[in-house]
């Protein structure tokens, strides 16, 4: 039935990626939160009424009022400003930690998947072992070695995340490697770099982006946790985890000091989680929502 051939319609399911993203409730809410976050981080200088580190701009322990919308902390610093500048720190922490984890992880994962052989076994077994240490322990160890500071905390969280990204990238790369199109390229005489960079990497990237977005939330939580313990951000940085630690002694007297940074962290993490979920559905509409 040659008529059937000529009439076979080309399925045009070319809805733009963004439209798909925005049509999921998760994606929409997540994107909104993240955009708000980025804006407040970028324009903190303009939006913040006071300097985040200047003490005594208001009386100490002022509850939220008209002048200081989120109140003041134990040093009389304005909470609004601290939160706004804190968002900048948070974003930077998330981006850098995930940057370290993902770049290293992708390199390791791709290498292991492509080269195979003993290198693959070595790399993947090592990742397995590191994985069983849990990110918390690795991060803690790194800080123990390097000393408490925000930079070190970021590096620690970054290193701690490597096994996870390496493993995910490795699995995804193996799947692609097994597909016929990859073999077809080999049969055409494709060079190693072409195979890895033009075929493997682009097909692995969507999964990695989803993982990375979700990973930003994990990284932020981990760094905030370290700061909470005093092992990360040091005074007077307006890092939210550190602010939570400080609030502990004044829970009864100034409960807003504990509530506000916590909500900030929770909302940020929620935003990235939802965005990551949204990415996942948008990139592969066939996959059922989990």
């Amino acid at each position, binding site marked *: 039935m040659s008529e059937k051939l000529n009439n076979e319609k080309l399925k045009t399911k070319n809805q733009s990626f963004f439209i798909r993203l925005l049509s999921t409730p998760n994606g929409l809410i997540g994107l909104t939160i993240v955009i708000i976050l980025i804006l407040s981080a970028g324009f903190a200088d303009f939006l913040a009424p006071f300097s985040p580190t200047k003490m005594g701009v208001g009386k100490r322990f002022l509850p939220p009022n008209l002048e200081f919308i989120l109140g003041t902390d134990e040093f009389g610093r304005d909470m609004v400003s601290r939160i706004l500048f804190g968002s900048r720190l948070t974003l930077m922490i998330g981006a850098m930690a995930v940057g370290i984890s993902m770049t290293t992880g992708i390199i390791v994962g791709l290498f292991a998947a492509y080269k195979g052989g003993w290198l693959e076994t070595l790399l993947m*077994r090592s990742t*397995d*072992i590191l994985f*069983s*240490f*849990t*990110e*918390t*322990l690795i991060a*803690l*160890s790194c*800080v*123990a*070695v*390097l*000393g*408490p500071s925000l930079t070190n905390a970021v590096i620690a969280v970054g290193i701690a995340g490597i096994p996870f990204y390496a493993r995910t990238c490795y699995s995804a790369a193996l799947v692609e490697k097994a597909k016929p199109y990859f073999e077809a390229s080999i049969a055409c005489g494709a060079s190693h770099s072409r195979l890895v960079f033009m075929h493997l990497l682009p097909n692995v990237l969507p999964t990695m982006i989803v993982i990375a977005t979700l990973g930003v*939330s994990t990284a932020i*939580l981990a760094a*905030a*946790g370290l700061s*909470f*313990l*005093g*092992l990360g951000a040091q005074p007077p940085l307006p890092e939210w*985890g550190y602010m*939570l630690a400080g*609030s*502990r002694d004044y*829970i*009864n007297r100034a*409960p807003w000091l*504990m509530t506000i940074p*916590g909500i900030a*962290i*929770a*909302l940020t*993490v*929620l935003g990235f*989680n*939802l965005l990551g*979920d949204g990415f996942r559905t948008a990139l592969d509409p066939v996959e*059922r929502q*989990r």
Partner: protein
Amino acid sequence: MIRFLLGKFVMAFLTVFITTILVTGLIHLVPGDPVQIMFAQSQGSTPEQIEEVRRNLGLDKPIYIQYFMYVEKLFQGDLGYTIRGGQPVIEVIFQRLPNTLKLACAAMIIAISIGLPIGFFAAYKKGTIWDTIVMIIAIAGISMPHFWLGLILLFFFALQLGWLPVSGSGYMNLVLPALTLGLSNAAIFARLTRSSMIDVMQQDFVQTALAKGLPKGLVLRRHVLRAGLVPLITMMGLQFAFMMGGAIVVENIFSWNGVGRMAVEAIFQRDYPIIQGFILTFAVVVVIVSIFLDTIYAFIDPRIRRG
């Protein structure tokens, strides 16, 4: 099955082995002179004392000798001495380890008993409003930092309502930290369970069972649950490890006298022997629990049990 378990044992052994290497190497990664740094925290130490510590830790010898020294001492149950008080590290750890384990186990029980049924329920009611509600709660739970949850619980139950004590070591004191850790992880468990169950529900054999005329409830209980639990067992191992990690923070909030609290103090004081001991202990505990769960898995999954 033997092969499977043997493979896991070997991995476990290797993990501990590598840990010992990393732990001995840790000191050398410290930028600067570790011994000086250790002593910078305490006052009034003479150069002789510093040298003695250096010799004790074997830092004046080449690395591989240090490693053998460490392992040798390990086999004798000697994990070194704390810089601060000169106590045997192993004593310090063993004093506090049970507390951490109690916390982790209690939290695990809470997490599983809340998370599993909720996840299962959400999977059963997939696509309905119940599913959405549960998922919203779960994702909120995951996004909430557990240290914040701890503070909130502390605020309400201990300070405001006075129902539970703020700190201490009794069983009443276990409630809040266990709840903190447990509730945060319950959310993760709920999501994992739901995913696993949904995966199973979409398998062909569920259709087969329904086509035989079995009631939906039975299909869920006998077919879906059984098949879905199997992969969850392995995930529980990972979750336990996370819980151990989370315990570190929670112990600090509630002044719970476990190894987590000890570790953080040690990091501040640059007390490397304790840090080393802590890392090793943590790794060993996680490995033991993993092996235990892997064994259970090997027995439950007929594909492994019968090869």
